[in-house]
């Protein structure tokens, strides 16, 4: 046995793969932005008073949460364009798949957040003479935002993590860059370790930042500070 681990290659590829982290983040941020829009829309649908609208919301979340992201990606990139008679770029398919998939999870986060605000908060607002819009903007929204921030950041971390899958359709982000480097150097051990390190640092920083943000936004119930 005795494989000699080439530390020089490892350290050479850490910054090279770190440079590809921009692409990973770009895909993930675009996806979470799409997911937020989708989440807002579908959460509203799921809380609607009309049964049909609620049913559409349920079908959406159940379908995107009940199938693997990889299958959704293959379906969007190889399947849908055939039917529509168009071609779409790998990047677009990646952002769409990641965003629509993440959107189903964000929907549940938003829905839970909105439902967690007690009815009495609405009543209190009205009794103070606020309009429904004022109640939504000044009473419900700030409290919801604070409650959904931790799960929303977790969902962003999950989105960054699963964005590795978009390398399958050829988007050059960290994982694809690592695969390309392995093909040209035959050093999978060093390069995949470097890729793992880059992801670890990236995700660690994001989740830590989230924790700090959470703390900064925490409001004392009594003083309002």
């Amino acid at each position, binding site marked *: *046995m005795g*494989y000699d681990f080439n530390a020089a290659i490892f350290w050479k590829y850490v910054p090279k793969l770190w440079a590809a982290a921009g692409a990973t983040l770009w895909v993930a941020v675009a996806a979470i932005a799409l997911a937020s829009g989708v989440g807002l829309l579908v959460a509203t649908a799921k809380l609607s008073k009309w049964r049909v609208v609620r049913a559409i919301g349920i079908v959406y979340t*159940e*379908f995107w*949460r*009940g*199938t*693997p*992201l*990889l*299958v*959704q990606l*293959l*379906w969007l990139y*190889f*399947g*849908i364009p*055939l*039917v*529509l*008679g168009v071609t779409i770029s790998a990047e677009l398919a990646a952002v769409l798949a990641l965003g629509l998939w993440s959107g189903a999870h964000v929907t549940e986060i938003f829905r839970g957040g909105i439902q967690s605000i007690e009815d009495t908060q609405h009543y209190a607002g009205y009794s103070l003479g606020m309009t429904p819009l004022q109640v939504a903007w000044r009473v419900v929204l700030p409290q919801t935002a604070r409650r959904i921030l931790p799960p929303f950041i977790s969902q962003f971390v999950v989105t960054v*993590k*699963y*964005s*590795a*899958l978009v*390398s*399958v359709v050829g988007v050059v982000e960290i*994982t694809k860059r*690592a*695969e390309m480097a*392995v093909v040209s150097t035959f050093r*999978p*051990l060093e390069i*995949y*370790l470097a*890729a*793992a390190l880059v*992801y*670890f640092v990236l*995700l*660690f920083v994001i*989740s830590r930042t989230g924790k700090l943000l959470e703390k900064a936004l925490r409001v004392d119930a009594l003083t309002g500070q």
Partner: protein
Amino acid sequence: MAYHFHFEVIDRYLLPFLHAGRVTLTVAGLCIGIGTLLGLLVGALRASRSRILRGVCTVYVEAFRLTPFMVQLLFAYLALPLIVPFRITPIAAAVLTLSLNASAYASEVFRAGIQSVPQTQMAAGLALGMTRIQVFRRIIIPQGVRVVFPAYLSLMIQVMKDTSIFSIIAVPEITGYTKYLASQTFRSFELYTILALFYFAVTLTLGQLGRVIETRVLKTQFK
């Protein structure tokens, strides 16, 4: 031009398709089983009194949770064989990686379950003359299981869905087989739709099964 759907393309390949489906279910079952057992072990070790043991387990859990499963899988399949003195088949690499990955997440779920039971329960059990193990088995675990079951269930559904990623290292499971069929027949839309429906049926069944367990088996005793 309008697209003509040919969902019947699957007819010719139905048997191998279902066979690949069985491979998916088998590897998912293996990963869920091994992942749960290892998760219990790691979860218990993280509650241990030894600081070193706790530290090792924390590093283990965070290493798996803060890197993508796909990178872990590529590492296990392409890099690990260089440093271990035996051959690793794709299926072994896949099951090993997903089981370890699942155990890291599961250990967190189990830990949360143990922590959800108030400390006073342990004190009460000890005061009644039970041993620590007895309190764990009879008081803490039965209550903790009820708390963690929903999270555990969605984790295991996640594991089931993650087996689709095995297709990148040539495990003959259903996503890989469907990719192959799509390249043979150019019926990507129909085939991936059928594939999605397969996964949807499986996760729906798992979810319903979970709900039955939750309401029939784990129903709260004091009502």
